[in-house]
């Protein structure tokens, strides 16, 4: 009984809201706006639940006498300072974010530096991870590498010119690799590797011709823009469409009661 009522409610409300989308009468024409606002109000209360969970977790840490309980105390104190200051500024200035509000000081000098620095901290780790993990193992990973290099270099001044020595090193390296492993194959595979090897070495050496180098260095920025606008766009769209189709399937399962994880 206690599990069946919520499932029935889910079904009815889901079907109802989908039907409401298709009624062309007032007020249902604004149904999207209405449901968005509806959702914002309810999620506001859900936010309280989340905060409650966070605060209680850290209070429990302090009570248990954990090693890091000082930091939990600092977290709770910071939370209440940010909250009470905001409410006080709302009361005193008519809104926490209006022009003279002192709350903007908190936003600009505490929240913004922390947020921006946290975000940019990842830059170091991405660079270090790339150094360790980006290996040209097969066609796929080589394509990833080349695409990353072109996009990185295409977006900075002089990028095309700096790209040339890297291109040279890359093609000589790949060419040498293909030539060496020709001996490990027979027949058609060997010929293929041999030809590829010669091709890459030829590509590398032809970079010494100034005309060819000039074309490559001028082509890199437009190639990088093209990669961002076309293939990258295609991949992003495929990912988004896949995610959406998945969430539609999941939503259908929820409405028809196959998924019941939300009742706990």
């Amino acid at each position, binding site marked *: 009984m206690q599990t069946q009522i*919520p499932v029935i409610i889910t079904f009815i409300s889901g079907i109802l809201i989908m039907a409401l989308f298709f009624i062309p009468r007032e007020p249902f024409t604004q149904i999207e706006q209405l449901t968005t606002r509806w959702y914002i109000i309810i999620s506001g209360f859900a936010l309280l639940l989340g905060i409650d969970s966070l605060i209680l977790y850290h209070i429990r840490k302090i009570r248990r006498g954990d090693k890091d309980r000082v930091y939990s105390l*600092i977290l709770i104190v910071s939370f209440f300072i940010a909250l009470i200051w905001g409410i006080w500024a709302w009361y005193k200035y008519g809104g926490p974010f209006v022009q003279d509000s002192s709350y903007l000081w908190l936003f600009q000098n505490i929240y913004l530096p922390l947020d921006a620095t946290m975000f940019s901290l990842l830059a*170091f780790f991405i660079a270090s991870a790339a150094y360790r993990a980006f290996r040209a193992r097969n066609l796929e990973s080589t394509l990833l590498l080349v695409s990353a290099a072109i996009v990185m270099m295409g977006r900075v001044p002089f990028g095309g010119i700096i790209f040339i020595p890297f291109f040279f090193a890359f093609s000589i390296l790949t060419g040498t690799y293909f030539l060496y492993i020709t001996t490990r194959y027979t027949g058609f595979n060997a010929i293929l590797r041999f030809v590829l090897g010669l091709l890459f070495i030829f590509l590398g050496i032809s970079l010494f011709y100034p005309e060819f180098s000039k074309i490559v260095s001028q082509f890199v920025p437009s190639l990088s823009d093209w990669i961002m606008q076309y293939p990258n766009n295609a991949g992003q769209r495929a990912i988004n469409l896949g995610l959406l189709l998945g969430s539609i399937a999941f939503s259908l399962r929820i409405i028809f009661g196959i998924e019941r994880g939300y009742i706990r």
Partner: protein
Amino acid sequence: MIWDILGIWIAAFLTIAILSFIFGDNPIYKLAEHIFVGVSAGYGVILALNQAIWPSIQMGLMPNQHFFIKFMTIIAIILGILTLIRLEIFSYILPSIVWISRIPIAFVVGIGSGITIVASIQGFIFPQVSATFLPILSSNYTIDLSSPLNFLNSFLLAIGPIVILLGVITALVYFYFSTEQKGIILGIAKIGILIMMITFGASFGYTIMARFSLLISRFYFLLSDWLNLLK
């Protein structure tokens, strides 16, 4: 005035505290990290209340609003209050009424699922699919032969829309795991993977650019606004 200077010093201290993490976890970093979580939570509540929740309630209950909208707004508030039964306090005081909170959750989940289905199809899938197909008809297919560079550029622009169309289709085929991938499906999926690899590489390049430019402006803040070393 003194508030400004104090603000810059606090911002500089917090910036350096977070940056110190690259050389290993340390107490200063933990301090800044916990301050960040606390302040973000508090700021997030104020932001949500001030910019989203309170205006939504106000707009829903405006004097000349349609009755249905006012009714739904009040229902939303009641449901919201009922979800508060899930607060941990209640599980100690009155455990027997906790099950009531399942009802508003069921409502919210049902309505959310319904919205997801309709809004996704209407608002996202249709526009995205049409944006993938339509440019093929309207795009400029002339190839400029005046110089090698112009040739390359115009060639890329010409094949662009087809690359998008084929890229989206092949990548979606790669994601289809409901049947076993073999034969021609496997071939198409392999092309899909190559497109995905280009996407990942481009995303990597772009992420490096975005994060490092933010990092550089953090260093600029430290050297210029705080220490006044750059003139």
